[in-house]
């Protein structure tokens, strides 16, 4: 899959409490959660981003509390992809299972500047920031299928139907 968008640069160890404060945990609609992304730490953020934009972060993106509100809110904002030097593993897994694209590429994360254009090829792992090109490790095919298909939900549905067909046969 090819993703292109405008870059917004974030720092190291961006935590999920900062992304969606605990008081919003009762929310579940991505569009509603999206209104509160970075509300306490960067109140202007949601006004600056446009659907399709790409976040470029430092190491350990999504650290802290494992809350689906964080990736869901970013999906609600229409974020096209997150490029980071590294991801917290719970966030990483949640992103995959919800169909949010992630790319681990420390080289690109080190040089990207806000406002630049980025292009990501999730199949080959090639990341372009402006005119500079970087190679990242693409996700394994099995995992790419889950993300590209929109997350675990469609995948489980298909698996369930397959099992039911097999049981009937």
């Amino acid at each position, binding site marked *: 899959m090819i993703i292109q968008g405008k870059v917004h640069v974030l720092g190291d*160890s961006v*935590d999920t*409490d*900062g992304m969606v*404060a*605990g*008081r919003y*945990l*009762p929310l*579940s609609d991505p569009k509603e959660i999206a209104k509160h992304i970075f509300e*306490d*730490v960067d109140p202007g953020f949601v006004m600056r981003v446009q659907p399709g934009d790409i976040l470029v972060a430092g*190491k*350990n993106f999504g*650290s*802290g*509390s*494992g*809350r*689906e509100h964080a990736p869901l809110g970013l999906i609600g904002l229409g974020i096209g992809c997150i490029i980071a030097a*590294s991801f*917290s*593993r*719970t966030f990483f*897994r*949640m992103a*995959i*299972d*919800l169909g949010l694209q992630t790319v681990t590429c420390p080289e690109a994360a080190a040089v990207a500047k806000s406002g630049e254009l980025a292009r990501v090829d999730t199949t080959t792992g090639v990341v372009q920031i402006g005119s500079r090109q970087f190679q990242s490790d693409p996700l*394994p095919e*099995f*995992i790419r299928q889950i993300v590209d298909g929109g*997350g*675990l*939900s469609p*995948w*489980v*549905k298909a*698996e*369930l*139907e397959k*099992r039911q067909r097999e049981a009937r046969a």
Partner: protein
Amino acid sequence: MPQTIAEKILRNHSLEEKDEVRPCEFIRARVDLTLLNDVNGPAAFRHFEAMGGAKVSSPDKLALVCDHFAPAPSAAGAQLLSSMRRFAQEKGIENFFDAGKGGIEHTLVPQEGLIGPGDLIAGGDSHTCTAGAFSAFGAGMSWAGMAAIMILDETWFKVPESIRFNVTGKKSGYVTGKDIILQILQKIGVDGALYMSMEFGGPSISTLNIDERQAICNMAVEAGGKTAIIEPDEPTAEWAKQHCKRKYELITADPGAHYAAHYEIDLSRMRPMVAKPPSPGNVVPVEDVAGIHVDQVYMGNCANGTITDLRQIASVLKGRKLAKRTRAVIVPATQKVYLQAISEGLIEHFIEAGAAVSTPTCGACFGGHNGALSDGEVGVATINRNFRGRAGHPGAQVYLCNSYVAAATAVAGEIIDPAKL
């Protein structure tokens, strides 16, 4: 090839018959327990519906615990608890714990014998790694993933690399399990164990009781870890014999197993430690922050709400009063712990000292309710996170420490080494 504890547990749970698994390999596995609370449970139930789930494939392997918004502080929280009750009833989930009938999930499920050594535990909460205190592999996972497990009775795991902590020396004074993990965070940082299994062994592990081991494993996720596992020993075997309802297995690392890194932890040289805001990795010895005025001390949560913690707090508060400009909230982790504390007379000391004591809840730990901080306030807490906004207002600051330091601070009104109280 010799294997680490995490590798052996994952191999034992792999759907495909395997002699060994290797780091970075993806496997399909069956878990022993899926653990959901009132934040991630209702979200997982929505995924369950969206995925076309009708019945839970193994209802006896699911535990539902109301702890975050329990007792409900608001209508929105009450909706989440209702969703838990409805699902438990509709799907026939026996291991459902409502407010007042359980407590904080990570302390509750071992107490109820629902996990045991050698188990593979998947949870919607990031502190599911606390299960490592009981020599189980516990990992916080995605909430959609929880729904998939409920439907398919399987999930995928990426086998983590393992790092080893060899614990030696005799601890003294006011040093606890919490200080061990805080010192590790100081050493390796908040991503020092990213995607790894943190395994603890060595001659001095046996000097730490089961409760202190929970404090250690609980904060593995603060170092980026996927899980933390204490190598089983005599106290583990004794605990398992008393508590476990299912078959369990004491799994140790093979001699010569490959670890990505080895660390030596010498308890004899350890001091009580404090994590300064706004990161659990921002750790210094207590004397470096001594003298800072504190508005509220919060003692409890899934890291440090055990009977051992309450005894430590009582040893400090007994016969003393809280400082005039400092308040305290004490939250036993489970109803059983609460009852035990009452029967030992600990609660009396807390109330006489001037502390608020509450029913088990995660409330203030995530800034939700029951002790949130206001703008400009300084808190000291035995919890596991101090990110900006975590404990209430984003203008509040939180210092993390063990139960002795917290209790002594409540009396002094400022951060203090308990030995100097």
